[in-house]
């Protein structure tokens, strides 16, 4: 049963990746500019017409876009992402250099967002009408209204420029030992910006789910029959976690979108910063590799969330939603 369910999700994920790559490929080629010049990556002024034609012929840029996409897809499914037109190195090598940093930033921020929002949302949701309840509504609006890049600049000017206690950019000190502490010092500000701009809204969603669940009929019946408060709260939390997990799943793609901005701001050498650079230099193979990698991260994250939901929600396990 579960293997069939996972199989379905994986197939859906592959279809999503295929659609994303297809759209990205065509949108990139629809962008203004000469593909040969973009592919050359250097100073376009130095290319003459013959050289442009030669580049187009050698790299098949003169063929229809659909044929180019087919060729790219064929190579990609065999694990060949091509070469960066800017750096001349294999795209896969560049991606693997960047992937650990993005994974580190993503896992650390997601961990603190989930732990923080569960704590805040539960306390506020379970104490309806309390100061926690009212306070969280205000805090969540404030935190989700702050633009990450603005908060990032504020952090840099305060913690790096004024106090000088945290590095303003990079993933490790130049000439440093590259150890754990060095990494953590560089991670603090970008991670804090992402956490602070997300935790409030996630907590608020859980708070509302708990309040909705607390008013359900079965809670009234349990209360009327003297079921222990702890037992009732456990049931409420379990059920409230289902829409909460759904919400996390729905916001994962935009979460990655926000992380791209923060990576660029703090020059965090991750996939997001790489993507921004690749777009600026029109490095098509690298852009496609980056999009596919981020797409894969999103799809994998959603699969993990789906698996957790499968464990939490018996209706999903029993196929009750499809009946």
């Amino acid at each position, binding site marked *: 049963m579960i293997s069939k369910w996972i199989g379905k999700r994986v197939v859906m994920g592959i279809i999503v990746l295929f659609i994303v790559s297809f759209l990205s490929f065509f949108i990139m080629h629809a962008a203004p500019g000469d593909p040969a010049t973009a592919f050359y990556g250097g100073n376009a002024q130095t290319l003459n017409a013959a050289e442009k034609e030669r580049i187009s012929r050698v790299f098949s840029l003169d063929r229809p876009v659909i044929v180019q996409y087919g060729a790219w897809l064929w190579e990609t499914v065999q694990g060949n992402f091509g070469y960066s037109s800017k750096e001349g190195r294999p795209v896969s090598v560049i991606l693997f250099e960047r992937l650990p940093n993005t994974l580190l930033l993503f896992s650390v921020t997601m961990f603190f967002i989930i732990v923080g929002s569960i704590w805040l949302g539960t306390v506020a949701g379970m104490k309806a*009408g309390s100061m926690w309840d009212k306070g969280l509504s205000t805090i969540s609006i404030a935190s989700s209204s702050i633009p990450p890049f603005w908060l990032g600049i504020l952090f840099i000017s305060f913690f790096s420029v004024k106090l000088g206690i945290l590095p303003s950019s990079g993933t490790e000190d130049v000439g440093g030992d590259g150890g754990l502490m060095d990494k953590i010092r560089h991670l603090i500000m970008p991670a804090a910006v992402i956490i602070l701009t997300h935790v409030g809204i996630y907590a608020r969603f859980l708070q509302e789910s708990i309040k909705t669940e607390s008013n359900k009929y079965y809670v009234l019946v349990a209360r009327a029959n003297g079921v222990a408060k702890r037992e009732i709260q456990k049931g409420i939390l379990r059920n409230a976690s289902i829409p909460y997990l759904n919400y996390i799943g729905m916001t994962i793609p935009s979460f990655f979108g926000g992380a791209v901005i923060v990576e660029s701001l703090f020059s965090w050498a991750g996939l997001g910063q790489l993507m921004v650079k690749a777009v600026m230099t029109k490095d098509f193979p690298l852009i496609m590799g980056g999009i596919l990698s981020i797409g894969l991260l999103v799809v994998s994250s959603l699969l993990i969330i789906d698996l957790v939901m499968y464990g939490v929600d018996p*209706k999903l396990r029993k196929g009750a939603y499809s009946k």
Partner: protein
Amino acid sequence: MLNVDRLTIEIDGKCVVEESAFSVRPGKITSIIGESGSGKSMTIAALLTILPLGAKATGHALFNGRNLLDASKKEMDAIRKTHIFTIFQDAANSFNPSVKMERQLYTFSGGRRGDTVQQFRTKMTGLLDELELSVDILKQYPFELSGGMLQRCMIACALYVAPDLLIADEPTSSLDRVLQKEFIELLKRLNEEQGTTILLITHDLDVVVEVAHEMVVMQAGKVVETGSVATIFKQPGHPYTKRLLDSRF
């Protein structure tokens, strides 16, 4: 067993039950009857101190000499846990959809009495069998069972707990005629075999005449008549009661 006097319930300043008074005698089935909005369910919510936010109850509701309306939260938890069992109208939504029936039936019955899970299983298996429910339902979730099965599960818990007072709030309104009849028989059995006092809230006069000994008639938040079912059916004293009785097919 239960004496309600001058019970008034206000929601956000608006009076929904006014100065109502009635008694529930031990070992009897007393029915509160009235149309929708007459304040029947709100009265029960006040007795169980589970009124919605913004609602306030005043007056007296003496249960075995203790006024439920001014009982502390701890006292009320203890009373609800050990002396009163309540069956609600909507059986399909009376259970947590994400928790298996065994766990929920245990918290509603064996857990209340401090029984071990093993003791609960033995006793509940017998009760389920009596109620023509398979023991397999213990391994199922509420959404896998019908409304009728879930209502019988609640009855099983009531039989298990054998409370001093069983409150049944419109328990048959979501059941079909066959299940309604079965349910009424179960209530009678509970009353006759275990001597359980029952407070039955309904708007169905057929149910009242079939099962209740005494009745309380409510209209627009007020108790307009109380007495034995036989007497009131024979000679209704209030015009509203008369109209209710005349409305029967």
